[in-house]
């Protein structure tokens, strides 16, 4: 019997899966984003395409949570296939932000952040391809960690853009996020991109709040473009860190001006390839084709099963990879990605962490941003560079605007330096 009432529509399925009797996460309830496979529990990716899909196996990250004693309490709402910044592209309706009524919870892991913010789960798993853990954490006033690419196994994650995506924890404080990350991190023979660096970790111990002597770099490009209310809260928080013994200097990362474009070209291109598997034959929507031509039958299934944002990205990705445009878009985006990596490496040689507002804007009102996809993409300006560089980042609550809307602060660290961003974050939450 579940006690979840779900007034914010954070969950797509409320279903309990008991973990081991003992372990580091015993007595911890976990909500899992609905693009992470759970055996015998529906996993829809927020898409009508997978409305009836029930995976025959469990993702490694969920397996590890259960072995550590956690109890899964349900699967959470999300932008369809992770494609969105508000959780409004879900085929099953929007989620409301518990910390800001009438506003979006952010996305794409909006259900996970809302479930944690509302106290319906102690921690949650989200996925972050271009900010999808950090954005909803910032908007809902909770903590979210995007690990270094390769720290957490993606086995069982239904792919959107493989070269960018990571699974990460969301919690009400840094320590809980860190101890969840301790459990899910580490090599997995089923995901060849995982790394030994995650084998023996004690991130929870790094959440000691000690920022004495820490050097913080502030990339001017990631502050200048933000809303005034967000910028004000950001600098107040930097001042708070200074009073705790940290110091800061401003740095310039010219490459990040191109990060959103590069991110979308790469993510859409990978999505167009990944989502080719949804043809309605092995799984997916059951459509009786009106014609006998198999290409038309597939097109019909995909036309009915995919929502507007997914179609937009699959089509633009197909365009970016097509003959004559590949060099212009995809190859240039890969150059931009390498440039962003270089810029981060250089600035992190002079700083322990980089800090910026997580999102340049406070949470949008429900329904406000659906009509203009480009405006929605631009909201990812501060989060996407980190995915392009494969680095770890944490979003922690930094306070509220005068209108009472949550503002998040993002710390970015060096490759596999999760301990440093966790330590920095723990000084605030």
């Amino acid at each position: 019997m579940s006690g979840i009432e779900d007034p914010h529509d954070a969950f797509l399925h409320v279903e309990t899966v008991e973990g081991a009797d003992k372990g580091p996460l015993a007595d911890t309830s976990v909500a899992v984003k609905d693009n992470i496979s759970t055996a015998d529990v529906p996993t829809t990716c927020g898409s009508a395409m997978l409305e009836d899909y029930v995976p025959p196996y469990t993702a490694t990250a969920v397996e590890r949570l259960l072995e550590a004693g956690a109890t899964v309490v349900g699967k959470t709402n999300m932008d369809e296939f992770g494609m969105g910044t508000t959780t409004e592209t879900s085929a099953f309706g929007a989620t409301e932000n518990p910390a800001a009524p009438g506003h979006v919870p952010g996305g794409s892991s909006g259900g996970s952040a809302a479930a944690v913010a509302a106290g319906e789960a102690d921690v949650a798993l989200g996925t972050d391809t271009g900010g999808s853990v950090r954005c909803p954490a910032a908007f809902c006033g909770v903590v979210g960690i995007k690990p270094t690419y390769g720290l957490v196994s993606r086995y069982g994650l239904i792919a959107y853009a493989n070269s960018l995506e990571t699974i990460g924890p969301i919690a009400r404080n840094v320590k809980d996020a860190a101890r969840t990350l301790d459990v899910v991190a580490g090599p997995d023979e089923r995901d060849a991109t995982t790394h030994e660096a995650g084998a023996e970790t004690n991130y929870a111990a790094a959440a000691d709040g000690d920022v004495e002597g820490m050097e913080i770099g502030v990339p001017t490009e990631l502050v200048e473009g933000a809303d005034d209310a967000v910028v004000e809260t950001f600098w107040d928080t930097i001042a708070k860190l200074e009073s705790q013994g940290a110091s800061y200097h401003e740095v310039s990362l010219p490459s990040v001006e191109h990060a959103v474009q590069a991110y979308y070209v790469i993510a859409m291109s990978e999505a167009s390839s990944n989502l080719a598997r949804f043809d309605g034959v092995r799984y997916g929507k059951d459509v009786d084709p009106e014609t006998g031509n198999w290409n038309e039958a597939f097109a019909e299934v995909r036309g009915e099963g995919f929502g507007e944002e997914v179609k937009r990205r699959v089509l633009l990705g197909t365009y970016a990879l097509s003959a004559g445009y590949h060099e212009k878009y995809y190859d240039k985006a890969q150059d931009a990605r390498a440039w962003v990596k270089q810029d981060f490496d250089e600035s992190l040689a002079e700083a322990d962490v980089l800090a910026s507002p997580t999102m340049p804007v406070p949470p949008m009102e429900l329904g406000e941003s659906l009509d203009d996809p480009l405006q929605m993409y631009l909201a990812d300006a501060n989060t996407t560079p980190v995915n392009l560089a494969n680095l770890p980042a944490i979003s922690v609550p930094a306070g509220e605007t005068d209108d009472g809307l949550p503002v998040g602060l993002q710390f970015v660290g060096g490759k596999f330096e999760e301990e440093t961003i966790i330590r920095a974050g723990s000084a605030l939450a």
Partner: protein
Amino acid sequence: MSEPRVEPDDVRHVAQLARVSLAGEDVEAFTEQFADILDHFETLDEVPDVDADADLVNVLRTDEVHEGLSQEEALRNAAETEDGYFVGPNVS
């Protein structure tokens, strides 16, 4: 910056390549949106050539047989199956 021209036929063409059927109003909306989005992507032209020095290594494993999904498990999400096979649309 020059506005990339996107015509409804371009949208229909990529939709066909991607095997996605589109309603008429989607073609219209996408034509306008794609022009805006591709115009924004144009700024990638300003990105210099960068030498990427990825410190990556290939990961290999021994080729051992492990237990996989049973045929029943693999078929259980299919709309239609026959004699242990998936049933797809006609090839014609």
